[in-house]
């Protein structure tokens, strides 16, 4: 609570004195941001990165750098700045929605990393980013959000693995929180006090990396292991609002992909695999999930997803599959097709993630790994076009289920052994052993 005398009371009975400038800083910055257009906020973004370096120098925060140990690859962002994407030993920051609604999304992704022989850390010690609470109800507060964010970042830091964010919502939220924590001393000090109570320090990641950027950087390795021919598969891509519209200057763009006009990830994966990438008129439109709309305006979300995205995509491209890179987008675009189909509308298209599509192309099992049985819109024609015998695969899946019912342990995707040692000694788990079987 900012006291009248310009001080703030911290948890451990310390009183922190804020200068007038600091207290006003966030307000000034937000109104400046509002005054400029999307690419005008590049200044703020670069200022934040500068400030992060300053704070690190002063010893106020620890920055989790993308060091050479993570085998980073540089990509260009919309701001022109080069962003370093770690490729090995990443800490999987999972998505509640993916694990809950589209389990194939994440198992396909782990399967790919496993196939490529790339070690990763699948930690159970992750807390939800609570971003949906923030976007859905607007009742969260910046301190709580940032505390949860930095708590997760500290866990990754301890494990000596670089955080890789699976969900677009988490990614967008974390970009906003990082900006707040760096630029606003009040928030930063309160978060420090909270983390202190759980025995953690302030560790801010140097780069916030979305898994689609990882897949973009690794797409040639993925394509090299392609088993099925997808050259006759027509693909339409949908990019998530939270990845490329929130703090737009931080996402990956590539001059050689779509002329650098649209974000590179996901489209680049489809192109690398040899599929036909098609454009459509509502590319930039939201999928319909919105922030809180899927909760409070679900009829409109569902209708928007169908009439503004699915139907035009089908009519304009006649694509075989719609690929996206976010939990919410896959959920919305896929599940929103039910009601229109029940009402008699004809247009439909399967919606899967880039990780599922890449895994399928690499030969992953469509049901045991990619778990397409959870999806609503009909994927049978897609599998047929890819040369995958879905009937046989389904039989395999049925017999696998029977075996599991009979007592067999379910399939588990293991990470290849790690090279790096966790930091922090006693508190860290042994990371090359699965915690849950």
């Amino acid at each position, binding site marked *: 609570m900012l006291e009248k005398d310009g001080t703030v009371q911290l948890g451990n009975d310390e009183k922190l004195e804020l200068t007038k400038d600091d207290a006003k800083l966030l307000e000034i910055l937000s109104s400046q941001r509002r005054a*400029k*257009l999307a*690419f*005008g906020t590049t200044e703020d973004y670069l200022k934040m990165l500068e400030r992060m370096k300053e704070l690190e120098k002063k010893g106020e925060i620890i920055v989790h750098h993308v060091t050479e140990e993570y085998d980073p690859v540089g990509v260009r962002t919309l701001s022109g700045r080069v962003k370093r994407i770690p490729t090995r030993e990443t800490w999987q920051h999972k998505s509640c929605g993916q694990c809950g609604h589209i389990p194939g999304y994440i198992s396909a992704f782990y399967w790919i990393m496993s196939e490529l022989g790339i070690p990763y850390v699948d930690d159970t010690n992750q807390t939800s980013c609570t971003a949906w609470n923030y976007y859905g109800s607007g009742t969260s507060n910046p301190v709580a959000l940032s505390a949860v964010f930095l708590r997760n970042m500290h866990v990754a830091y301890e494990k000596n693995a670089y955080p890789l964010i699976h969900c677009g919502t988490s990614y967008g939220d974390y970009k906003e929180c990082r900006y707040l924590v760096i630029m606003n001393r009040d928030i930063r000090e309160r978060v420090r006090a909270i983390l202190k109570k759980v025995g953690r320090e302030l560790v801010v990641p140097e780069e916030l990396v979305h898994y689609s950027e990882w897949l973009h950087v690794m797409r040639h390795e993925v394509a090299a292991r392609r088993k099925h021919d997808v050259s006759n598969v027509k693909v339409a891509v949908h990019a998530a609002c939270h990845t490329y519209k929130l703090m737009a200057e931080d996402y990956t763009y590539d001059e050689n992909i779509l*002329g650098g*006009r649209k974000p590179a990830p996901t489209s680049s994966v489809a192109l690398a695999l040899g599929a036909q990438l098609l454009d459509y*008129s509502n590319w*930039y439109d939201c999928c319909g999930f919105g922030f809180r709309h899927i909760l409070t305006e679900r009829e409109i979300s569902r209708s928007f997803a169908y009439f503004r995205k699915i139907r035009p995509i089908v009519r304009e491209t006649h694509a075989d599959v719609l690929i996206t890179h976010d939990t919410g987008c896959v959920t919305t675009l896929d599940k929103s097709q039910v009601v229109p189909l029940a009402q008699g509308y004809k247009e439909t298209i399967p919606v899967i993630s880039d990780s599922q599509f890449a895994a399928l192309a690499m030969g992953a099992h469509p049901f045991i790994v990619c778990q397409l049985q959870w999806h609503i819109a009909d994927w049978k024609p897609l599998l047929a076009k890819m040369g995958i015998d879905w009937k046989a695969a389904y039989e395999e899946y049925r017999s696998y289920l029977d075996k599991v019912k009979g007592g067999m342990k379910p399939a588990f995707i293991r990470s290849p052994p790690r090279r790096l040692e966790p930091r922090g000694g006693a508190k860290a788990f042994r990371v090359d052993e699965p915690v849950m079987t």
Partner: protein
Amino acid sequence: MMMKEQGRPVLVIGGGPAGLQAAKDIAEFGEQVVLVERRKELGGAPIRWSYHTLAPDFRPTEEVMGPLVEFCEKNDNVTVMKGCVVEECNGRPGEFRVRIKDESAKEFTEMVVSSIIVATGFEHFDARVDPRYGYGRLPNVIGINELEVMLKQRRVVGHDGRPPKRVAFIFCVGSRDRSTNPWCCTVCCGVSIKQGIEIKQLLPDTQVYMIYMDIRTMGLWEKMYWDSMEKYGINFIRGRVGEVYFTGERLLVKGEDTLVRGPFEVLFDMVVLAVGIEPGPGTKQAANVLKLSLNEYGFLAPRLPNVHFDSGKEGIFLAGACVAPMSVEEALSEGSAAAMQAVKFRRNIVKKVPV
């Protein structure tokens, strides 16, 4: 190049409407004038972009520009230097020592001039900078400058050679926008409406839509606006366009109709962007060489914004679109005003200094 003994000439930088008018007036005063033009032809924007007609009464451009260009090329008092740029300026008012470079021959000319008029004009906004409209990427998205040539040739066609059945004009491209240029170009509304009328005269069955924020047909140009609606059935949509998408055959224009408070996504055959006026490289270069100040928008800053010809520097005068966006008729008046100042200045000097 012949220099008469009567005294030092006036240097006019820029051979557009303002510069030509200034040169003509100075010459008719009996004074010498050197007219330096960056491009290989005189006439400025109206000639460079082949303006078909001039607002407000659809006067053929030749009627206005022809006599000016002819006078300057033929008159003995005017020395025209085409394809040339003023590279250096030293000395003092009344005795400016300038170095003029011939760009192609790579030759230099040095001379002493009494006073200088800067009339370096403008550039049209390059709409590639604003990716919304797909200019430079999509077929059949053109600027008002490119449309003038088509109108002059009496052939308005798309990239496939066929006349468009439905045309959209998008106002304020590269103007009144913080992300591109924040000023108003004053003439684009009038020019676009003029062109809309000319398209209807050429292709009566073509539907023309003007997608505008405000209509700024000032003064007597207002008549074109009334006629466009009442005589030619041109449609006006108050709103903005968010994106132009090429379907493979036609252009899908996506925007908001403010009066309906709702989105529209309609197919058009051709989209014409009202690309605005912005300061050109000639203006920047002249400002550099003559140490003139530019205002926050990059236009030449007169001492007082209300008096364009007064640059604040003795012996240097400003005229035309290099100071602020304006129409051809205004530029002509400004050229004349600057000419008057230059001659007044020169004759005062002559009185003081024995010849």
